[in-house]
């Protein structure tokens, strides 16, 4: 069964994108699993790590994926040569991009198309947006092609995030140990709760937990982390791993980063060890509960 892990929280800048990247690369590079990473965020930050993103000539500031490497002019009639996950909302074909990391493929964002889906308000259409990613990921073609699918979401509780949660088998909530971040956690727990009402026992949505991110050795962070660990029921969902604030996590995210991945660093590198341990914990939960 393909595992579908969603990184979500409606607060911005918590580490959704970073954690999606780390998990996907851990799964592909360290575990050798066939992995797909999906960018559901109109900001398209994640996509830019793996492929070239171009400015959308039609919508200023928006980004679109570069031409697909397999596209051949003249041969592929009826296809403009670009493909993004947003195509599922338009009944268009979706073709994953290869990445420089073996075993890892990408379905990039398309800013404008995703924004349109996020802005839907009419009930019947909303229903479709909510279920579309789930329907797509349930296609036998998709299931048979990948062991693990990682989804990055926008900083919102809107239709795109809900669609990701409806499609998910597992949720990870990266969060800084600060007031607004915890409120973001609350928002996500509510989406998880709502969704769990609709799932059968066999097809549960599993909350792996809250991953404390950008943690520094300061009183504020310690007290918030302890606060979470003291809460009834909630404490089971605070991961016993933390990610510290380190410049390397930002540096490694650019497309031409060297080394390519944190998991290409020497085995005893502290940053690699730290993230590897978090990913290991998450994957252990995903595969063995």
């Amino acid at each position, binding site marked *: 069964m393909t595992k579908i892990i969603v990184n979500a929280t409606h607060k911005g800048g918590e580490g959704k994108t970073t954690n999606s990247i780390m998990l996907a690369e851990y799964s592909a590079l360290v575990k050798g699993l066939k992995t797909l990473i999906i960018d559901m965020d109109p900001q398209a930050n994640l996509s830019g790590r793996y492929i070239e993103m171009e400015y959308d000539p039609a919508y200023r500031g928006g980004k679109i994926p570069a031409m697909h490497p397999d596209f051949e002019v003249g041969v592929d009639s009826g296809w403009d040569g670009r493909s993004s996950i947003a195509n599922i909302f338009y009944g268009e074909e979706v073709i994953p991009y290869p990445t420089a990391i073996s075993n890892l493929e990408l379905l990039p964002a398309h800013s404008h198309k995703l924004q349109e889906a996020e802005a839907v308000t009419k*009930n*019947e259409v909303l*229903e479709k947006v909510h279920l579309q990613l789930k329907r797509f990921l349930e296609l036998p073609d998709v299931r048979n092609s990948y062991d693990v699918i990682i989804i990055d979401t926008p900083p919102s509780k809107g239709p795109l995030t809900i669609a990701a949660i409806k499609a998910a088998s597992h949720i990870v909530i990266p969060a800084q140990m600060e*007031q607004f971040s*915890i*409120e973001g*956690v*609350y928002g996500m*727990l*509510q989406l*998880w*709760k*709502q969704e*769990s*009402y*609709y*799932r*059968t*026992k066999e097809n*549960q949505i599993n*909350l792996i937990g809250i991953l404390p991110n950008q943690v520094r050795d300061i*009183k*504020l962070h310690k*007290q*918030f982390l302890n*606060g*979470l660990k003291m*809460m*009834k*029921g*909630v404490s*089971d*969902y605070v991961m016993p791993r933390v990610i510290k604030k380190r410049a390397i996590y930002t540096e490694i995210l650019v497309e031409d980063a060297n080394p390519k991945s944190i998991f290409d660093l020497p085995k005893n590198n502290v940053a690699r060890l730290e993230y590897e341990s978090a990913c290991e914990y998450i994957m252990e939960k995903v595969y063995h509960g």
Partner: protein
Amino acid sequence: MAKKKVFQISNALTEGLEETVSAAHNYTGELRVEAIPLRKMELDPENPRDLILTFEDLYNGLDKDDKNYLRKAEEKATLITLSNSIKEQGIINPVLVYKHGDKYRLIAGERRTLASILAGKSEVQAKILDTKPEELKISLLQWMENVERRDLSLWERLKNLEKILSAFAADKGMEFNRVSPTDLGRLLGCSLPHAMNFIAVLNADDKVKALIQSNKLKNLEKAALISTIKSDGIKQNAIDACIAGATLKKLKSISTQDKIQKQTTTQLPAPSTRGRQATLVNLGTTKKIHVVRLIIDSVLGHEKLTHLKKHFTDLNWADYKSINHAFKQLLKTLEQIEAE
């Protein structure tokens, strides 16, 4: 010396987080939807129906000799629009059923089911319960489902909530207005402050309720704050400000005047009696049903009045209207007795 700063997650947030997790655990799968064959569905013989049209009527076609033919034909005609929409896009809202042997008995969604048969469907999307649910459970399911829908107005949510509360109260044999915010929070899986807001608004006066009903007050927190303001003048100010788009913070600052005013008024000397001379006694009003009960029980305990007890045996103690009516009757009767 400066106090050491302590960073803490607020109590409200802590409660919210804890309750969300516990609700997720308690209600997993409660709203799951599956496709079930229409042929396996049946009506619940114990449930009253609005329609007389049966499933068989639609499978076999109407029988001209049926003494209800005309009425059934009319009912069938009213299903056409729904049936066409189901043909095109399926059922938007799943029906609710419970397992009964190898059949599924319908709890809610009779028209949707009939229209699906009419549309020539073989399956229908349904929420399936293992056993026949109690009233309370049904309202709870409706609540959980409705919270999911964003286009519900505050008024609609309150109406839903009233149903849940009276079902819960009936279940526990308590009075409607004795359900505590803690009970409510547990019931709905929402935070305590949220539950307190709901209860404040449910107890709001008619004027505030009318504004909620006409969707002039839309926000639960704001409506709750306004409901708890005692002084009429300040309440009106807060209402006007709210309708003009004031933030919750602004409303809070208006409502603090209420507290200040309350403090000052208690220090003022009692006003001297002016105006018309009083010729009647106002027995006042109360929201607390147990107070009314105490008064009525005490009166009926009077040795000359025990025969009146029979008028109160069937009184619905959860319904303010009936209590009001009964109390007025009692007063009248008492006035007559005294005159005799």
